[in-house]
């Protein structure tokens, strides 16, 4: 089975945090980037060939993925391949949607010659065994299997909802329904029989090109043609971190030692590009409670219920509370940070306040400089 991760989305709802990088490259949980979860799931599920489709601001993401060795995905006949839009004699091949992106990469997929293609999103936080999903797909003799997760009735109105029969076969798909008939939301995870999907895509782009998006176009087309489409229910921890609030909230959940994500499970590790940074230094004035900190950090202030990522500095008399600070951010002295996401390489000058609330999380953007003009000159 070949894995394809769709990592081209801009993530406009993350505002300042994705102004200069793609959503899957946004830091998460102190020492990860969002895409690490999907890549690690592939590696742990025994999928050794993965294509990562990028489009929006791919520099950071490409640098992060490298040759895939950080996830053990650098095999000679496989490994990670970054797939970017390209131009050809028949025009430029920018991706117009998720299914269109697969169509544009038929050459790559055919070269790997898979029986099954696993399509994944690069922007979800979860641990999942795709091998078990493939076994289900094979047992059901499915043409397409869609990963689904039970959500509440209220949440169901924001998702693509799958209505199934008693054999778990999907009989109807409704996007963001007002009156949901089931609570099974699509996770954006699909296993396709490649030969069938390829035919659908080629037929579509030979005619009207209507199959742009998996949820919006391909699943309805499959249902219409009576393909065997099944729902594979997942019941573990799964979060879509598409908004500032959900990104902040997922980080706060990650911080809990009782999180059902179980990040410490050594049988299903989440890998990332690891750097050789010195151990964190907590000085005599440091007060750290209920927090996660990683190497390269320097803490002289107070950190409560927060996550500090690599190389973060927190100066004396500063307070960081209920917040997530991304790599290489520098927080000066006498700073207050509360209910906030602090972007990579942001500089928060002495005495500055970045204070949000449960209703509105405060954000300092990538490389943003806030307050404390004096500090730089010292």
């Amino acid at each position, binding site marked *: 089975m070949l894995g394809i991760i769709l990592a081209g989305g801009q993530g406009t709802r993350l505002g300042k945090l994705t102004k200069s990088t793609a959503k899957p490259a946004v830091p998460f949980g102190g020492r990860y980037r969002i895409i690490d979860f999907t890549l690690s799931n592939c590696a742990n599920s025994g999928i050794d060939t993965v294509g990562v489709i990028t489009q929006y601001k791919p520099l950071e993401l490409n640098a992060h993925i490298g040759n895939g060795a950080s996830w053990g995905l650098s095999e000679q006949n496989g490994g990670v391949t970054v797939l970017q839009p390209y131009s050809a004699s028949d025009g430029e091949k920018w991706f117009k949607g998720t299914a269109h992106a697969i169509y544009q990469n038929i050459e790559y997929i055919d070269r790997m010659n898979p029986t099954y293609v696993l399509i994944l999103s690069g922007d979800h936080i979860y641990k999942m065994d795709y091998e078990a999903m493939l076994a289900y797909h094979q047992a059901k003799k499915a043409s397409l299997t869609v990963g689904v997760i039970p959500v509440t009735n209220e949440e169901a109105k924001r998702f693509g909802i799958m209505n199934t029969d008693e054999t778990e076969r999907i009989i109807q798909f409704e996007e963001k329904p007002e009156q949901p008939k089931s609570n099974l939301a699509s996770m954006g995870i699909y296993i396709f029989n490649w030969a069938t999907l390829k035919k659908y895509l080629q037929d579509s782009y030979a005619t009207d090109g209507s199959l742009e998006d998996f949820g919006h176009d391909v699943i309805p087309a499959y249902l219409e043609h009576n393909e065997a489409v099944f729902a594979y229910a997942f019941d573990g921890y799964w979060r879509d971190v598409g908004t500032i609030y959900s990104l902040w909230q997922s980080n706060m959940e990650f911080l809990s030692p009782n999180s059902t994500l179980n990040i410490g499970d050594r049988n299903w590790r989440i*890998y990332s590009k690891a750097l050789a940074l010195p151990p964190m230094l907590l000085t005599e004035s440091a007060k750290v409670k209920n927090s996660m900190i990683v190497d390269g950090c320097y803490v002289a202030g107070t950190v409560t219920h927060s996550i500090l990522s690599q190389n973060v500095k927190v100066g004396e008399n500063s307070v960081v509370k209920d917040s997530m600070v991304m790599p290489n951010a520098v927080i000066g002295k006498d700073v207050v940070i509360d209910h906030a996401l602090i972007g990579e390489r942001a500089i928060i000058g002495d005495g500055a306040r970045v204070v949000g609330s449960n209703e509105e999380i405060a954000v300092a953007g990538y490389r943003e400089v806030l307050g404390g003009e004096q500090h730089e000159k010292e």
Partner: protein
Amino acid sequence: MKKNRLCAIINLIEPAEALLPLTEQRPLGTLPFAGRYRLLDFPLSCISNAGINTVALFLPRNGRSVGDHVRSGKDWDLDSLRGGVFTFPYNDLAVVAAQQQAEARHHFYDNYIQFLRKSGAEYVVILGTQNVNNIDISALWRYHQQRNNEMTTVYKFLPAEQVAADDQVVTLTEYGKATSILPLAEANIPAAATMVPKSLAIHMIDVRRLIELLQEANREGQAGGLNLVLKHAVMQNNTSAFEYTGFQANIRSIQDFYAANMQMLLEKNYQALFFSERQILTKVKNEIPSFFSRDSQVENCLVGTGSYIEGTVTHSVIFRNVLINRRARISDSVIMQGSRIGAGTVIEHAILDKSVVIGPNLKLIGTAEQPLVIGKGQHVYQQKEVVTQ
């Protein structure tokens, strides 16, 4: 730098008896240090930062811990197409029986010579792991070429009271040459000297010259090893002396090892060694972030990743993946990776080697001069099992 003009030898054949039991299962070079490193990381990083591609590791006995740590050398960018890391285990004449000395000696010198010939390098830098430092080998190399001597040796001026009678010191001429490397007691240093030029056991030498010296030593039946060959070479009066001015710690004993770890808690040392323009590299691990609980209290500490801390920790070096349970109180100690400390246990002035398990409500108390040492993998569940040295 053009590839392969300079190669390196890391000599791991170093005295380690004074660090028992920490060196029972490893050479000095793979002793864990400062929360996430091994002593070997310092010379490896210096070599890597100077753009050197070809490195030989000479080991006293089996190289398991060295092999586990270094692997392909990738983490130090030493797995390039040209060059690489070459290991030579069991290359210590001191452990060979008398009747086999002659044959063993030939192999011993031949290993060095073969490596040097194959490297294709013009110059070689030789380092050990006993001295923790972050030397700029590129600067040493420029100096070596400018001085136009066959050899350059490295020293650092230290306050006289920090140099012991058996520490090796460099005798300097007025014109910056070195004429000998001798123990302080034999070195004829004026008693009034406040600063003493201590040898860092780092040398740079022309490859052809070193091959000649090794062949000569083999012919003469010398069994003193590479360091002795180099010391004799210095006395031939053609050696430049290069002064190193950065951080250094000399790991000769348990006390030195303990003190050097404690020195890393001083911000100026931590910044000087780890945030200089020449990064210290090490084998990277995929540990999760360290977690500090609601009731934890951690001050003045170095902490590696993957640790889980519920107790109180002050003025200590905590390595990766250490678990410290509730109400445990740890101060002035070094706790290596994978160790587990039970609830309510008190640990003061102690060194816990890797994967040590300490039960609840125990007292492990050493002193700053004589830290209590618990060997690798030991499980201590009862107070009577705690033996003070």
